[in-house]
């Protein structure tokens, strides 16, 4: 078989994907009401352009971007705006959002189309459409895609990497997308490649998805995709992290404190590539996405195509979650996902999965650190997490900074392997918070 790419470090949690890997994406019917937050991306929140009583269509702009590093927000249903105000947000806090009542008319309003084939469009025109469609990183990072596609001219990009790793256990949304919308994905890849002017393009897929690898490889044999190669990745967490993906596929390292463009690369999730294709070819803004609903207390797990703004409770009920046995609901994957407190929180652009758990892992350490070094072996950034945690415990922020705490990507690999069940990544998050507070206090003096 072809060459296998991987990186140093990482862990091998059980994949737990068998439940949903073979389930085709089902369209989840639009709910009676949606709550669409105006902040579903990194950057400035969108500003509302509708108010109570306004009639909106699917795909209509309801929030304009709050700056360059921001993204517009569109309605995912047609109907009437019920209110604009604070609503529960899956990230835990309350965020201004738009509540819309669905009139079930399914009226659509699309973006103004490109008046020429995309191959003849200028780079700027394509980026503008991506921006107008409100596309953000669908892998979970939710960084505004048009910003990623506009690196400054002193950072030339020669490699585009499409992220089909989906390294988190349980999640299969990207896997199904690669199987069911393969041609659209590859069209999206070509569009992204054109926008960036990248000479080479890799599609990285973990080897625990052999059917996707086979299918994509087959389609890539067409001469249309002569500069696009499939990179078979070792199935390891966090292979899907940008830095690890770049290192595995190209051997380069993103410099500490830098961005992928500093290594001449841009990474885009497969879902983002499909969304870009839909926007450019179909004028469709981002208002729905695939979500994997699974976990030990789900009787009927599914991969669902869900409208943005759907309360997560509806998805859980549709998949017959045993609520009495459920102790935790997580948005995202089990390694970096966020535990949900409010089931009325909506699905947002970065919701790749909803996991429901019956058992909860220890929150407090059970044993002292025995210096076993498993965390050092697991860390994909090659830090010494046990040492960082000890520094934070003593509140020696300076020493923690010296041992590179700020380079931590908070993937959780260290915490997964720790036999003492110390929540190392939590200490690091706390330490970073203190470091930033200290820095802010110093600049304010």
């Amino acid at each position, binding site marked *: 078989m072809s060459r296998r790419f991987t990186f140093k470090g990482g*862990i091998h*949690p059980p994949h737990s994907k068998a439940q949903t890997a073979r389930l085709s994406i089902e369209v989840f019917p639009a709910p009676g009401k949606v709550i669409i937050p105006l902040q579903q991306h990194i950057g400035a929140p969108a500003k509302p352009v509708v108010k109570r009583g306004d009639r909106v269509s699917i795909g209509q702009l309801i929030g304009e971007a709050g700056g360059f590093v921001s993204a517009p927000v569109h309605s995912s249903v047609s109907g009437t705006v019920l209110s604009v105000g604070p609503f*529960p947000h899956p990230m835990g806090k309350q965020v201004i959002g738009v509540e819309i009542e669905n009139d079930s008319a399914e009226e659509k309003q699309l973006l103004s189309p490109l008046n020429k084939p995309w191959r003849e469009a200028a780079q700027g025109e394509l980026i503008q459409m991506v921006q107008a469609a409100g596309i953000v990183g669908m892998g979970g990072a939710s960084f505004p895609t048009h910003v990623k596609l506009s690196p400054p001219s002193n950072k030339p990009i020669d490699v585009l990497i499409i992220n089909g790793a989906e390294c988190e*256990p349980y999640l299969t949304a990207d896997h199904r997308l690669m199987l069911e919308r393969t041609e659209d994905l590859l069209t999206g890849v070509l569009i992204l490649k054109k926008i960036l002017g990248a000479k080479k393009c890799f599609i990285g897929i973990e080897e625990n998805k052999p059917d996707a690898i086979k299918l994509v490889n087959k389609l890539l044999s067409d001469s249309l995709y002569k500069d696009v190669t499939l990179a078979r990745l070792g199935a390891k967490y966090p292979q899907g992290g940008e*830095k690890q993906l770049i290192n595995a596929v190209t051997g*380069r*390292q*993103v*410099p500490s*404190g830098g961005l992928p463009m*500093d*290594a*001449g690369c841009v990474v885009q999730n497969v879902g983002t590539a499909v969304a870009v294709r839909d926007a450019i070819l179909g004028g469709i803004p981002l208002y729905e996405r695939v979500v994997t609903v699974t976990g030990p207390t789900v009787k009927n797990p599914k991969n669902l195509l869900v409208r943005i703004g759907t*309360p997560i*409770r*509806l998805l859980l009920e549709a998949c017959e979650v045993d609520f*009495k046995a*459920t*102790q*935790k*609901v*997580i948005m*995202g994957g*089990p*390694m*970096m*996902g*966020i*535990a949900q*407190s*409010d*089931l*009325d929180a909506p699905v947002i652009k970065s919701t790749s999965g909803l*996991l429901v758990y019956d058992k*909860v*892992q220890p*929150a407090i350490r*059970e*044993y*002292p650190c*025995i*210096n076993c*070094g498993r965390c*050092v072996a697991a860390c994909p*950034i*090659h*830090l*010494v997490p*046990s*040492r960082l945690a000890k520094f934070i415990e003593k509140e020696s922020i300076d020493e923690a900074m010296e041992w*590179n705490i700020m*380079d931590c990507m908070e993937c959780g690999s260290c*915490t*997964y392997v*720790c*036999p*003492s*069940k110390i*929540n190392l*990544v939590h200490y690091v998050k706390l330490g970073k918070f203190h470091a930033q507070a200290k820095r802010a206090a110093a600049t304010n003096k």
Partner: protein
Amino acid sequence: MINQTITKTENGEKKLASGVEKAKFQLNLSSSPHIRHPETVPDIMRWVVIALCPALIASLLFFGWRAIFLTCVSVSFAVLTEFIITRLTGKPKSVGDFSAVITGILLAFNVSPILPWWMMALGSIFSIGVAKMAFGGLGSNFINPALAGRAFLMACYPAAMTSWSAPQGIIKGTLSGFDGMTSATPLAFFKTAVRDGSIANLNFQDALMNLFVGNVGGCIGETSAIALLIGAIILWHKKIIGFRIPFIYIGTVFLLFWLFNGTGNLLSQTAIAIPLFQILSGGLFLGAFFMATDMVTSPITPGGKVYFALGCGILTFIIRKFGGYPEGVSYSILIMNLFVPLIERYTRPSIYGKVRKRG
């Protein structure tokens, strides 16, 4: 009022989106990651105990039931000491993590099978009470507790600690591993043979086999190289020890004794037999596989382990060749334990993205 404080149901008073009757249930909000590898500290410790069992069985075969008795004394007093101290200081009970059991076994493995039982008990109390608990318990000790106990006993009862017996268990043999040489343990015998020049005439073949199997005099757990190797394989399989420390430690001792074998050349049979003899005796296998690899007292950094093992190897060579003691494993490891914080500071792994730029 009472219900409000006891059960925090999610979504207190908010209106339902779907109109379905809301089930009362609690949602845990602890932070990511939400899954953990099942292995815990007691799991690791238990595997170490299992890995020490081949050597324990070997000690029974060669030294008889007294070896087992002494091991039991050592383990009991270790566990008891830890239990009493945690109770007296009001700290949470820690004996369940099995680390005291390991210290007990390792300390017993480091003493002669004819040591008086009360000395064994004292050594055990010192190992746990002083070398471990006084510094904060598991994870806070800076030297290997079993080796600290051994050093304590050597200082207090040097005569008893250097009184040996030849294997008189089910398998019988000579003290030194050499036929007819009954006066000293292998390394002590070796030292005198070097001094009086008879080293070149020795028949190493049988002695090496005796050393490998364990048919020699010495400490309870240190004599059978093969039993210790089996234990090491178990620990490698479970990823509890790595390859760096044992191989570099043993390799360094071998290399130094080969280069400085005293016969004047490097390729004669004696020239190879001498370093082999050295690594198979004096508890080097026990030290390299089970004590230098002790997680708490060895460097956590991969590069640090290399320097640590090198230091142990060089010190063991120096003590054995030039020092007054015939063997130097326990002191080498104890001395290198002291350098661990320094070694760790200077061997931090180079992080992803440091300095290296594009291409």
